[in-house]
């Protein structure tokens, strides 16, 4: 008994025959699959410069953020935020006001540039 009996019972399973149209149905599905054009590969060559610029920009923003945070920490509570290039930019734009205005402008410019860049990349033929 035991193993032998289980083996005997489970070895004898009724065999199903495929229905008459099975192979034809599979081949129809395969032909449909074959007719679908191959997926367009991702345009790495075109995207790579943009990706590199994006990474560099992110790095730069991170660095500016870290430097700015350190400066803020060092300055007294009532002193002005003085990231040198930001102060210059604000003076050039005629905005001598708060540091928040400067940062907002930088963020807006970055957003506009990235949107413009992605629209331009997207509109070009692959």
């Amino acid at each position, binding site marked *: 008994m035991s193993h032998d009996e289980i083996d005997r019972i*489970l070895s004898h*399973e009724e065999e*199903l025959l495929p229905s008459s149209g099975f192979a034809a149905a599979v*081949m129809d599905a395969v032909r449909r*699959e074959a007719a679908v054009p191959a997926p367009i590969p991702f345009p790495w060559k075109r995207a790579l410069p943009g990706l590199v610029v994006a990474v560099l920009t992110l790095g730069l923003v991170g660095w500016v953020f870290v430097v700015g945070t350190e400066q803020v920490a060092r300055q007294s509570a009532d002193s002005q935020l003085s990231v040198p290039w930001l102060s210059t930019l604000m003076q050039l734009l005629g905005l001598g006001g708060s540091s928040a205005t400067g940062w907002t402008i930088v963020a807006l410019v970055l957003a506009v540039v990235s949107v413009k860049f992605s629209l331009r990349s997207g509109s070009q033929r692959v």
Partner: protein
Amino acid sequence: MSASEDQADVARVLAGEVSAYEGIVRRWQGPLINLAYRFCRDRGRAEELAQEAFLRAYRALSQWRRDAVFSTWLFALATNLYRSELRRIPARTVPLEDVEEPRDPRAADGGVEDDDRDRAVRRAVYALPAKYREALVLFYFHEMDVPCAANSLGLPEGTVKARLFRGRQLLRGKLPQLLAAPRLKEA
């Protein structure tokens, strides 16, 4: 079934001759449907699963490495699909605790009702936890060949052997009287 026929058909399909795939489908439709049926016990669903397996095999044909026999690769792919599909939508099975032995496994004349007993054992197999059930299904599908079952399941042979042992132990625990009944009809 010839491995060289499979190899030739695969080469033709990869060269762009889609109709050559029909040879593969015709050679392997029976085994793939039967394997699916052993997983789900539903003929209609078995054919759907087998069709999906053939489609996936067609898509992945270029990934078949010639170091394994085509059928081994095909069974492994199909088994993987059937297992994941049955986890997603399980077959209707009875919990192992609810599987009952036939009330009187011996007929009035002292003989054993083989059909009842066989059905009860199969029901008990389908009520086993998936890992034991799958090992048993594959083992008997591959005519008790552990390496083949292990290949299809993508598991080491030792693991499959351990699951077979445990699966049979659970079956014997659930159906002790049934499996202990002497087969008087054959005597």
